[in-house]
């Protein structure tokens, strides 16, 4: 299996990793800004507190009070807070902050730290009566340190997380490859002609197992169809050979003219044999068309009760002529979704089968009724029946059971019935009528119209 850029597994893994990386980065940025904002607010609060304390001094003792407070502070508490007081002319008259006169309000300023050189600071400049200006500033060095620490920590974490993510993505890609490789290997084997190969199915019952399972089911179905096709081709070849060679021999004899000149009767015989071959073709094509299932588009509501009653009237006469008895029993108002003509054909086939394969005097029942499972059409007889082991085989194309060899027919009747039943979503089954054969078409409830 390819492990390159064309691999969906790789793309999925890479995409997952990219999303993961983007999420990590976003989280880092959010943490950084949130922390930064919190610390900045804290610094601003400290400055505000100091400013209000100094304003209280001003309130109590005027400019002098502020001046002395600043002097005292400068001496006793060389903390991160710096202060300065300017007079109306702009000259610094108190405080430890060596800065020029600054505009009122919140400012970011630069001052000169005797120990560390130029430093960033945050300052609040308040105008006092008499145009004095009070500056309270806080060193931003601590904030920068915190920012740096967060960035460094975060940088390491991101690298670690991304590496972990990459490892996870690679593992995922490998896993996907491994799970898909089995399915691909099976398909390739099938393409090479090994039709017995099936995909391995794990125990987890996950998506991959389900895909493998459905692949196997599909392969089984295809194998069944191929077997069916082979059987049909073989059956067709066999069934066509017989009438065609009869026809050929017949024509040969007619040409020979040895007492068998081309009389009307012998020409009729040849035409009948040719018609037989054509009818066989028609029957096969019709079964194929029904099996295809595309006829379903034209399905409509069919009154099964009326259809079977009418058909019964005709078939009763047919049975009478063949010296059989046909009993028709039809429940009222049973309707299904389907094709009237196909259903008629299926029932005609079943009754015809019963007539053909039972001795004179046999009784055949044609019944339609509704039960909790849906609509049920039954054709039963009291003839010799079919051994249960042959029930399935009897429905296949061209299969003519030993007992039926002597009777006319192509062995397509029951496979046509089965195809018609399946096209309707109905089930066709053969059973024992004890004695005799019972053929059933069951229309499930959902197609009852």
């Amino acid at each position, binding site marked *: 299996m390819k492990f390159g850029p064309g691999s969906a597994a790789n793309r999925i893994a890479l995409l997952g990793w990219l999303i993961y990386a983007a999420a990590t980065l976003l989280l880092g940025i959010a943490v950084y800004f949130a922390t930064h904002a919190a610390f900045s607010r804290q610094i601003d609060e400290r400055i505000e507190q100091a400013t209000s304390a100094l304003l209280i001094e001003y309130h109590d003792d005027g400019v002098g009070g502020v001046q002395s407070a600043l002097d005292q502070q400068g001496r006793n508490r060389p903390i991160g807070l710096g202060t300065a007081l300017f007079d109306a002319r702009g000259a610094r008259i108190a405080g430890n902050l060596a800065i020029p006169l600054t505009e009122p309000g919140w400012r970011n300023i630069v001052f000169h730290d005797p120990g560390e050189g130029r430093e960033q600071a945050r300052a609040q400049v308040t105008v006092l009566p008499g145009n004095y200006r009070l500056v309270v500033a806080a060193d931003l060095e601590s904030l920068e340190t915190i920012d740096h620490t967060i960035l460094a920590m975060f940088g390491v974490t991101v690298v670690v997380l991304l590496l972990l993510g990459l490892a996870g993505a690679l593992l995922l890609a490998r896993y996907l490859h491994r799970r898909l490789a089995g399915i691909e290997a099976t398909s390739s084997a099938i393409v090479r002609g090994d039709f017995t190969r099936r995909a391995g199915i794990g125990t987890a019952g996950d998506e991959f197992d389900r895909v493998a399972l459905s692949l196997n089911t599909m392969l089984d179905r295809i194998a069944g169809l191929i077997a069916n096709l082979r059987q049909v081709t073989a059956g067709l070849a066999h069934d066509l050979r017989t009438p065609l060679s009869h026809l050929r021999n017949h024509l040969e004899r007619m040409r020979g003219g040895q007492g068998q000149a081309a009389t009307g009767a012998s020409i009729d015989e040849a035409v009948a044999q040719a018609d037989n071959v054509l009818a066989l073709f028609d029957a096969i*094509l019709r079964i194929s*068309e029904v099996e295809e299932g595309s006829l379903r588009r034209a399905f409509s509501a069919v009154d099964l009760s009326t259809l079977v009653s009418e058909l019964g009237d*005709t078939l009763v006469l047919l049975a009478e002529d063949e010296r059989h008895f046909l009993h028709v029993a039809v429940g009222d108002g049973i309707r299904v979704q389907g094709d009237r*003509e196909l259903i008629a054909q299926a029932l*005609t086939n079943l009754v*015809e089968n019963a007539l053909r394969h039972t001795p004179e005097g046999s009784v055949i029942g044609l019944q339609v009724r509704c039960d909790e499972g849906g609509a049920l059409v039954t054709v039963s007889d009291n003839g010799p029946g079919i051994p249960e082991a042959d029930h399935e085989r009897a429905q296949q194309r061209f299969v003519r059971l030993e007992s039926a060899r002597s009777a006319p027919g192509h062995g397509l009747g029951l496979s046509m019935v089965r195809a018609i039943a399946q096209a309707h979503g109905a089930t066709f089954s053969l059973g024992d009528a004890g004695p005799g054969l019972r053929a059933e078409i069951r229309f499930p409830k959902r197609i009852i119209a």
Partner: protein
Amino acid sequence: MRILLAEDDTDTAQFIETSLGELSHVVKSVGTGDAALRIARSESWDVIILDRMLPELDGLTLLKAARSCGVTTPVLMLTALGRIEDRVDGLDAGADDYLVKPFAPSELVARVQALGRRYTQSEIATKLLAGPLELDLIAREIRRDGRLVLLQPRELRLLEVLMRHAGEFVTRAMLLEDVWDFHFDPQTKLIETHMSRLRAKLNEGGLPDLIETVRGSGYRVRAV
């Protein structure tokens, strides 16, 4: 009858021309869809026989075009496609009948004649007459020489179809379609069974048989 035949296969065309020519019908044969459409529109025909697969313009398209230009001539469509769906498509496109290749000449002749008659006979006839037979379509009663014959509905329908085509052969396939609405061959003696009962009832009392059977062609009721 004047018959327009649109068929590109020369063997089939010749075979059809011979079959219909023997009955002194005039057959004009064309090999392409374009030519067929042109002639179908410019001249008047009793029946058009149209192959579904024609060069230049296929039969279905041709037929739809002709019908939309107001050509009402009955059309028999010929096709190598025997599928149920194809028949439905053909009839939807405006064909009056549909015949799958290969077909017996008798089948073609019977269907062409039936199509040609369909438009000459009065559509609103309430009585059908054929020799001694008189069928009242409203009362659903049949009389032979004025005497009422009791028939089952299906037998009556069978006789009705034969009488509508009185004087011509009606094939098994046509009877299956018209009487039972079956477009498949049930491979049974369905028709024979009904026909023998119909005959028995019509000929009761040793009267001569009015329904003629020709193997391979079908059944016929004499017109007079």
